[in-house]
């Protein structure tokens, strides 16, 4: 893929895949329409599911904007510096109202780079007062070193006891930079060292630092426990860095990753690999069964992936301003072939494997 192409989001490029319907068409047609591969709905029917239904709500995931300082090739959000969508303070207020009364114990702030939203700190301060048990910020690490105004983020995170979850594609420079851009590895290492200096990720520390690994290409993640072992060993030996857990996440065939799969002629093989690795045991614990995802403009989704495919929740309640947990819990989750990504192998969610 050309350098220029990867420096812009699909939206900026006016690429046909910036259109969620076009993505859904690809996921429904071809090998799935011809019957060469079973649709996800048919696959879960084999174990008696007519659809997926939510269990108890545990995680409220809030996407505070698609703006990002990076343009990673696999990004399912299609985030980048050219994306201007960010959550307003008014929508954040509505989220805060919900946070105060929700039964969810985890708040998961994501983006883009959530720190780039000008109201990010205000929101963290307000939300951290609400008694949420696990307050996650998904940080891409480089943001901490991107600009002076972000240099104090590690202190800010520490002050609010934020649980930092950061992406790290590999423990080597070459692989990391290839997926996420030149210089990303060195900046990420520096950011991790700074977090370690504040006590983040150290054994026994309550300042939690977890890493997210997702494959840099058209293959599935390996075993989470052994990847964690390899990551820990390499980062400690080479850079004296420590962290708590590694979450291995499967890339879902949507947005820029779908674009990459098609451009590199890996789409069919990848879908075969996902379907072949389908694990019925993962179905019960997919992320959408305990999560609600809120977009920058306040719409509600079953998960971050459905958000990117613009598949709003199948409920009377569709916006944070009219949030009603009881009504929302009584809904069918919207599924398509991308859901194979959550049920392949040991399964995949924002918290890593599920089976």
């Amino acid at each position, binding site marked *: 893929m050309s350098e220029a192409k990867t420096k812009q989001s699909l939206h900026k490029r006016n690429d046909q895949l910036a259109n969620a319907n076009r993505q859904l068409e690809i996921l429904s047609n071809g090998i799935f329409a011809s019957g060469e591969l079973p649709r996800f709905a048919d696959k879960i029917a084999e174990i008696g599911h007519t659809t997926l239904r939510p269990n108890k709500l545990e995680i409220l995931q809030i996407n505070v904007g698609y703006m990002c300082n990076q343009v990673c090739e696999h990004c399912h959000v299609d985030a980048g510096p050219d994306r201007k969508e960010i959550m307003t303070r008014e929508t954040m207020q509505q989220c805060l109202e919900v946070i105060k009364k929700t039964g969810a114990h985890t708040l998961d702030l994501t983006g883009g780079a959530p720190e780039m939203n000008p109201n990010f700190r205000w929101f963290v301060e307000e939300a951290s007062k609400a008694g949420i048990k696990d307050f996650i910020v998904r940080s891409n690490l480089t943001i901490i070193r991107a600009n002076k105004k972000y240099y104090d983020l590690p202190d800010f995170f520490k002050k609010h006891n934020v649980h930092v979850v950061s992406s790290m594609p*590999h*423990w*080597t420079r*070459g*692989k990391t930079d290839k997926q996420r851009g030149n210089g990303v590895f060195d900046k990420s290492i520096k950011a991790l060292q700074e977090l370690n200096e504040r006590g983040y990720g150290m054994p026994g520390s309550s300042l939690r630092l977890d890493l997210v*690994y997702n*494959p840099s*290409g058209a*293959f*599935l*993640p*390996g*075993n989470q426990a*052994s*990847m964690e072992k*390899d*990551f820990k060993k390499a980062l400690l030996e080479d850079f004296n860095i420590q962290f708590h857990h590694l979450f291995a996440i499967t890339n879902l065939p949507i947005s820029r990753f779908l674009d990459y799969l098609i451009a590199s002629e890996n789409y069919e093989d990848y879908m*075969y690999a996902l379907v*072949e690795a389908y694990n019925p045991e993962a179905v019960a614990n997919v992320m959408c069964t305990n999560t609600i995802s809120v977009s920058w403009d306040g719409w509600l989704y079953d998960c971050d992936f459905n958000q990117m495919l613009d598949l709003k929740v199948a409920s009377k309640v569709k916006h944070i301003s009219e949030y009603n947990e009881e009504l929302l819990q009584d809904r069918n989750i919207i599924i398509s072939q991308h859901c194979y990504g959550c049920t392949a192998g040991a399964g995949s969610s924002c918290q890593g494997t599920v089976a």
Partner: protein
Amino acid sequence: MSKTYYDPADLRKFGKITEWSEELGTKFFDYYSKVFEEGALSAREKSLIALAVSHVVKCPYCIDAYTKDGLQRGITKEEMMEAVHAGAAIESGATLVHGVQMMNKYDKLSM
């Protein structure tokens, strides 16, 4: 002519060999998966051995499969290439060591 002996899509059909001989096919796959489990050698080490052997036996299906397997395990391309060289060194050594036989025979037959 578009047909060739090797078709990458055939790799996906490998499991079908059990259809024509269930017992032997199943025994083979059981054995195969057992071999690659964690043991005295790690699954990662076995993956690299498999990659090297794939090259020595020149099986394009195995090369595809174990390159992908290595990627999934986070094995780097430098490690993969070193494994291939280890295989290649043994293979060329095995050829060259027969040079001794040639030399012996040559000497025996010569005055």
